[in-house]
């Protein structure tokens, strides 16, 4: 019996020839990372109390400040100072401040690699499956990863999502992922890896694969992954900070379930309130007045997406009553926009350019919603209170949908602009 890509990666990390779903192994991640939300003082304080004198693999650790940057309050200025001191004291090799969102820059900086196992303290890291990396959100097990270089992992089952056809203009992998999330529902992929496969995958860029893998955690999935092909390997080769071994699933691997999607038949999809799994066709909400439109986060805001958004925004302006905010997922994406001469398009559209980071997505800073306001956003989650007031409503959609909606001042179909 063959193995899935996830089983192969975990077997290797556990030093075993084979692993079975349900089995609990102790594995060694190739790279471990945590961000500012919990690292200092929560994780560092616990590691101090445990008595950790040194990190197991400081050269394979990145600490990322992405949730409160540039420091949003004095508390966070002090926490970031503490974070930096801790990283220096323990010889953490990679310290990223303001370079972008962890789940984006782990791929960009060559830490999340095809066929390898990355551990993050943040459960939203499924995004990194887009490069063919098994990226697992492991919460407090980051303490073990830092101190001992290991962590326990219950080997997940796998659900295959087979993709055929090709996406029509104005429909994106973000719409596809929302469809899959809605179809699986809350708990539909419980303790499974959602593995995207099939002939359509090769046409999808690595940027769009990352947007496809993002947010799958809301189905209960352990993570999501796209088997690496030449595109993913090419992306990783130019960036890799370590060697990597890109594995793929065996043809006779076992799946809990196989779902099939013909991309040619897909339409723009929204996650409507009250939950990220409430997938609805855009037609149902077209015309709903909005107060804010946001493009950014780890789920969307990569260069490929922003290039397409720029085509929609070209010579157009956001409606006067809309707070239109765009924050690229990383500094590298922002640089790309600048180099390609697209920044002007965004500025002329009336967009407020935010710094790469997580603030808007979780209602911390940079674009909070007032009571009664309606927002359309490319972020990860739309539960009440996520982006400010619990009396605000959040719709989630593709960057193209958000751009079209910003222009009209109401929820709009991006296909009308292409």
């Amino acid at each position: 019996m063959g193995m899935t890509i996830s089983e192969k990666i975990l077997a290797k990390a556990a030093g075993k020839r084979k692993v079975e779903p349900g089995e609990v192994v102790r594995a060694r991640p190739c790279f471990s990372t945590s961000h500012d939300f919990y690292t200092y003082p929560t994780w560092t304080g616990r590691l101090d109390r445990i008595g950790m004198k040194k990190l197991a693999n400081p050269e394979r650790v990145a600490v990322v400040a992405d949730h409160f940057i540039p420091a949003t309050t004095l508390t966070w200025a002090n926490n970031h100072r503490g974070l930096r001191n801790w990283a220096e004291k323990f010889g953490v090799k990679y310290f990223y401040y303001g370079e972008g969102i962890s789940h984006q820059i782990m791929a960009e900086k060559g830490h999340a690699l095809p066929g390898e196992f990355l551990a993050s303290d943040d459960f939203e890291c499924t995004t990194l499956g887009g490069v063919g990396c098994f990226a697992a959100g492991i919460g407090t097990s980051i303490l073990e990863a830092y101190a001992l270089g290991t962590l326990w992992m219950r080997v997940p089952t796998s659900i295959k999502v087979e993709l055929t056809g090709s996406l029509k203009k104005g429909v994106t992998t973000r719409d596809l992922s929302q469809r899959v999330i809605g179809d699986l529902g809350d708990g539909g992929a419980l303790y499974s890896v959602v593995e995207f496969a099939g002939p359509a995958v090769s046409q999808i860029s690595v940027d769009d694969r990352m947007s496809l893998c993002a947010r799958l955690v809301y189905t209960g999935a352990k993570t999501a992954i796209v088997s690496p092909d030449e595109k993913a390997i090419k992306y990783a080769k130019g960036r890799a900070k370590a060697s990597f071994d890109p594995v793929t699933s065996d043809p006779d691997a076992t799946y809990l379930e196989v779902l099939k999607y013909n991309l040619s038949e897909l339409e723009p999809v929204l996650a409507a309130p009250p939950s990220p799994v409430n997938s609805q066709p855009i037609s149902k909400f077209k015309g709903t007045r909005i107060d804010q439109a946001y493009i950014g986060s780890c789920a969307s805001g990569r260069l490929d997406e922003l290039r397409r958004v720029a085509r929609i925004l070209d010579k157009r302006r956001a409606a006067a009553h809309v707070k239109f905010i765009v924050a690229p997922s990383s500094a590298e994406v922002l640089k790309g926009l600048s180099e390609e001469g697209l920044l002007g398009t965004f500025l002329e559209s009336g967009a407020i350019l935010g710094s790469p980071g997580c603030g808007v997505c979780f209602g911390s800073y940079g674009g909070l919603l007032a009571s009664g306001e309606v927002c359309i956003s490319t972020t990860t989650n739309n539960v009440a209170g996520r982006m400010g007031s619990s009396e605000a409503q959040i719709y989630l959609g593709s960057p193209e949908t958000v751009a079209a909606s910003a222009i009209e001042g109401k929820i709009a179909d991006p296909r009308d602009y292409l």
Partner: protein
Amino acid sequence: MEKRLKGTAWKFGDNINADEACQFYKNMNLDLNNREALAKICMTGYDSDFPKKGKEGDFIVGGKNFGSGHMHAHFYYSIKALGIRAVIAESVFHRLYREAINSGLPIIICPSTGAIQNGDPIEIDLEKGLITNERTKEVIRSETLSPVLKEIIEQGGIDGYIKSELEKP
């Protein structure tokens, strides 16, 4: 860790949402070190009297997808604070599974919890993976706890486990 655990089973349904269960958005400012206050929010989103019913050593029994949603730590901290000895469920959200184990709270996966009614006295044999309903004498099979996880629970959670590993010569 004892091999057999005895207590009362408190039954909850499928899809128990972690944040709703502990009314997280109402209680988010509670200090995670304040056991007394945390015990008072345990499962109150589904049963406001639960902190009065649940006793030290009891069990929470869930159905499918126990602990779903964007779980915050208040959920499993409140369960531990009330003294709940273990959670039995047909399936659990992976975040809860990890964090409960890492905080020293056993999670026992059991294919069907239909044979357990609210308030039943039960006994769990962790070694054999058997749950006995002492009211009906029915015995149901559960997963056994992996030795890897048992080691962590025996050290009181992940911090204790790491400490013991670091202290090994």
